[in-house]
C-alpha cells in the first residue's frame, strides 16, 4: 500500500535478462518521495530497462521492485512515463492528447487542457494534429499529458535529447518550474551529464552493460531556483561535472570498446 514515508521507488537487487543477455544485474536503488533523481550512463547500459521495470511494463527476472511500499505486480499505478519515443496519438488533436488521462477516467478535461496549452505557450494550437506541430511543441504537449494526471512519480526517458539547444533549455526550465511548484518524485534518464547536474537533486552513474549496476551517487547541492543557461558557468557546477565525469568516462569508453 501507499505510505508517505516509503520510497517512491525501491529496486532490491533487481536484475533483468533478455534471452542470454543480462541488461541490469543486482541493482540497488532507493529514491525517496520528492527527489529529482537523474540517471546517467552510456548508451545501451539499461537506462530504459530500469524505467520499464519502474513502470511495471517489464518484470524483473531476479530481485524485486517496489513503489511506495508495494511490490510491483503489473503496471505501477503511481507513475507517469514520458517515453523516449513520440507517443502522442497522431489521430487526436494536441488538446485531446493533453486530456487523454482525463478521457480514460471518464471526464472531459477540456478546461484543464486549455489552461495547459496557454501555460505552455501553445494557445491557439489546440486543434492541431501532432503531424502539424513542431518537435518542441509535441514534447511540451507530451509533458503536459504526463503531468496532468497528478501521479506522484514521473519517469522521463531522454525526453529532450532530440530538441535544439534553445528549445531544450526552455523545456528544462519548464520542467524545473513544474517540479518546484509541486514536489513530485522524478526519475530522469539522460546521457547528457550537464543536463543531469542542472536539473537533479541527485545524480546516479550507471556502469556500461551487460549486467549494469549503480557505480556512484552524487547529491547536487546547487541552490534553487536554478537558471539553466547560466548555471553551467558556475564553478560549483563545473567542479561537480569534473568529479562525476571521472566516474562516467571509463564506463563510456568501456561501452564504446564493445
Amino acid at each position, binding site marked *: 500500500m501507499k505510505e508517505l514515508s516509503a520510497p517512491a521507488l525501491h529496486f532490491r537487487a533487481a536484475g533483468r535478462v533478455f534471452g542470454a543477455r543480462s541488461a541490469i544485474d543486482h541493482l540497488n536503488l532507493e529514491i525517496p518521495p520528492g527527489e529529482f533523481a537523474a540517471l546517467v550512463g552510456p548508451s545501451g547500459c539499461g537506462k530504459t530497462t530500469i524505467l520499464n521495470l519502474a*513502470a511495471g511494463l517489464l518484470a524483473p527476472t531476479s530481485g524485486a521492485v517496489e513503489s511506495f511500499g508495494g511490490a510491483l505486480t503489473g503496471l505501477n499505478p503511481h507513475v507517469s512515463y514520458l517515453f523516449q519515443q513520440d507517443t502522442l496519438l497522431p489521430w487526436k488533436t494536441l488538446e485531446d492528447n493533453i486530456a487523454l488521462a482525463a478521457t*480514460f477516467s471518464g471526464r472531459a478535461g477540456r478546461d484543464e487542457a486549455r489552461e495547459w496549452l496557454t501555460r505552455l505557450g501553445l494557445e491557439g494550437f489546440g486543434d492541431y*494534429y501532432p503531424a502539424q506541430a513542431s518537435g518542441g511543441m509535441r514534447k511540451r504537449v507530451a509533458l503536459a499529458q504526463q503531468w496532468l494526471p497528478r501521479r506522484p512519480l514521473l519517469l522521463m526517458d531522454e525526453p529532450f535529447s532530440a530538441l535544439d539547444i534553445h528549445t531544450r533549455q526552455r523545456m528544462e526550465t519548464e520542467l524545473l518550474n513544474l517540479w518546484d511548484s509541486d514536489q513530485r518524485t522524478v526519475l530522469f534518464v539522460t546521457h547528457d551529464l550537464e543536463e543531469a547536474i542542472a536539473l537533479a537533486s541527485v545524480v546516479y552513474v550507471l556502469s556500461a552493460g551487460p549486467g549494469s549496476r549503480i557505480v556512484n551517487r552524487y547529491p547536487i547541492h546547487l541552490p534553487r531556483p536554478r537558471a539553466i543557461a547560466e548555471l553551467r558557468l558556475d564553478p560549483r557546477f563545473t567542479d561537480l561535472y569534473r568529479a562525476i565525469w571521472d566516474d562516467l568516462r571509463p564506463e563510456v569508453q568501456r561501452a564504446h570498446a564493445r
Partner: protein
Amino acid sequence: MPGKHVLGYQLGLAAFLLALWEAGARATWIDPFFFSRPSLIGARLAEWFSTSLIWGHLGATLLEALLAFVLGSAAGIVTGFWLGRWPLGAAVAEPFLQTANALPRVVLAPLFIFWFGLGIASKVAFGMTLVFFLVFFNTYRGVRSVERALIDNARLLGANERQLLRHVLLPSALGWIFSSLEASIGLAMVGAVVGEYLGATGGLGYLIAQAEGLLDTTGMLAGMALLAVVVLLIAALVRRAERRLLRWQQPR
C-alpha cells in the same frame, strides 16, 4: 501535382477510344457481331432505363453486394481485432484461415447456389467469403502494427481494454481497413454478379447471362458498362468517407 488539366485529358482519351471503336465497327475493321458498337450500347442502356425493369435488376444486385459488403466487412473487422489482440487464437487459427483463403473462391459459387437456392442468400454468402478475407487480413495487420509504446502509454494513462480499442487500436487500424474497403466493394459486386450469372431470377449478372444466351454482345457489354459505372460511384463515396475519417493524416 499533375495540374487541373488531367480531367480534360482523361475525357478526351475516353472519347477518342470510343470514337475509334465506333468508326472501326462501322467500317467493319472489327466485327460488330463480336464487339458491338458504343452507339448501340448507349441506345440499349437508354432503352433499359426507359422501362422501370432495369431498376429492379440494378436494385437486386446492389442489395446483394451491399449485404455481402457490410456483413463480410463487419465479420472481417471483428475477427481481425479479436485475433489481433489474442496471439494464441491467431496462432491456432492461422493454418485454417490460410487454407480457406487459398481456395479459389469461384468454385464455391455453384455450391452456395446448391445450398442456399437461387435467391439472394446464395449471392450474399458468396460475396461475404470474398470480402471477409481481404478485410480480415488488413485489420489483423493494422492491429498488430500499432506501435508498442502507444499502447503502453495509453495503458499507463489508465485506459482499459475497451478504451484502448476505441482510442488507440481502431483509429490506428483504420487506415489499413480503409485501404481494403475500396477493393472489397469491388469484390462484393463480383460476388453478386457471378452468383447471378450462375443462377438467379434477376440482377445485372442475370441480364448479362441472358444476353449471352441470345449471343447478344450489345446486351452483355451494356450490362458490364452499367456495372463499371456503379462500382466507380461507390468507390468515390468510400474515398470521401475515408478523407473525413483520416483527416489527421493530411497536415494542413
